[in-house]
């Protein structure tokens, strides 16, 4: 492969090394959008550890190489993808990132969340330490959720509860509230916004509302954008990117345009808009390509690529072409 032209690599044909080279931008001219697609290709291999452990673990190693990059957006996605891979081979890399105060907040947050997604019980002492002592509230809250998730997933309660099967393939930071209880939307909205309740329970209400996914449920979720926690708000934006209900678009645009919002929240709003991909979001996303905040600028690039994919006849996002 020539160094000048990294394009035209097919997911089935590309070697792990080719994908890594695009991900870490070895040639120096791989676009951010292409690097994201390479990352998701590697993730698809990294999660197939039951079929081919050696190949999957190699993919994990290559993905983790990208933690040496400067881009906060790319690295946070790297941590996210490692957690979603369910491959415990990722855990040592993620612990290292959480414990590294040179890494940016979004990257460390995503690493802590990923350890929860992996249900990595060995990481509990580390998560406890950063839950108690980290100066950043986003990190403390993420550790709180990851600890609660690991404890829940390994509990008797988990085995007994009836949960609705999610329409999405994501590993979420909390399960939806059980369907054993017939909550009204209003009740779920109250739990969602009750700052006296544990964050884990509020997230459970959030994911239950996501699974209901009606216009009414979406508007109840949008009320969460009034919360003071950037972490909480970014998760609302994330689930909007999953649901893809256009009724959420005005609230997402409002959040993206509000420069007093944290980069983490605005970034997630941009990517959600890219996934919803209705006509009205195109000019909005383009207008953020020059945003002052690098994470927002980069998110606009990735979101526009996602928009293009959603509106194309391309079957695979994770195929590099």
């Amino acid at each position, binding site marked *: 492969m020539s160094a000048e032209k990294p394009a035209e690599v097919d997911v089935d044909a590309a070697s792990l090394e080719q994908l890594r080279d695009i991900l870490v931008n070895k040639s120096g001219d791989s676009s951010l959008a292409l690097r994201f697609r390479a990352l998701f290709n590697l993730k698809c291999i990294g999660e197939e550890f039951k079929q081919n452990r050696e190949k999957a673990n190699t993919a994990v190693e290559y993905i983790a190489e990208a933690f040496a990059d400067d881009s906060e957006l790319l690295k946070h996605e790297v941590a996210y993808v490692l957690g979603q891979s369910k491959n415990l081979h990722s855990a040592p890399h993620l612990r290292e990132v959480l414990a590294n105060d040179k890494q940016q907040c979004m990257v460390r947050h995503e690493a802590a969340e990923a350890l929860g997604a992996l249900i990595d019980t060995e990481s509990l002492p580390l998560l406890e330490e950063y839950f108690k002592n980290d100066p950043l509230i986003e990190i403390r809250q993420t550790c709180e959720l990851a600890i609660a998730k690991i404890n829940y997933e390994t509990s008797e309660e988990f085995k007994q509860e009836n949960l609705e099967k999610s329409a999405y393939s994501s590993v979420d930071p909390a399960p939806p509230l059980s369907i054993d209880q017939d909550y009204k939307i209003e009740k779920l909205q109250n739990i969602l916004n009750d700052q006296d309740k544990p964050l884990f329970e509020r997230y459970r209400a959030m994911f239950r509302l996501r699974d209901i996914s009606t216009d009414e449920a979406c508007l109840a979720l949008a009320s969460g954008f009034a919360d003071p926690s950037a972490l909480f708000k970014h998760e609302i934006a994330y689930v909007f990117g999953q649901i893809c209900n256009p009724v959420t678009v005005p609230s997402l645009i409002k959040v993206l345009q509000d420069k007093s919002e944290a980069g983490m929240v605005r970034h997630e709003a941009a990517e959600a808009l890219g996934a919803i991909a209705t006509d009205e979001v195109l000019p909005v996303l383009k207008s953020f390509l020059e945003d002052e905040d690098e994470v927002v600028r980069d998110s606009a690039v990735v979101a526009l690529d996602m928009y293009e994919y959603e509106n194309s006849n391309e079957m695979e*996002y994770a195929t590099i072409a």
Partner: protein
Amino acid sequence: MSTSKTGKHGHAKVHLIATDIFTGKKLEDLSPSTHNMEVPNVTRQEYQLLDIDDGFLSLMTADGDTKDDVKTPETSLGDEIQAAFDEGKELLVTIIAAMGEEAAISFKEAPRS
């Protein structure tokens, strides 16, 4: 039907290939896996064949009324129905209906009672 791998938000695209029940044409669609799709309501009913007249089948409903608005198929099926009818056989024709369209899709000899 095939499903794509999923990206960041964990939703996939679904690729559907279907056959038009009236024309036999192959059709494709690509849709997000979380979206709902409209599915036609297809009904299937057998009628007794009374006559074939000017390209239309004359059929008898279960209530004894006649139904004369279904075309004789322009395919080999139409020729087979015509041939069997000309031999003087008592025929039952199966008609499918969906989205306001109707078509004959098969026939058989009526059981002798």
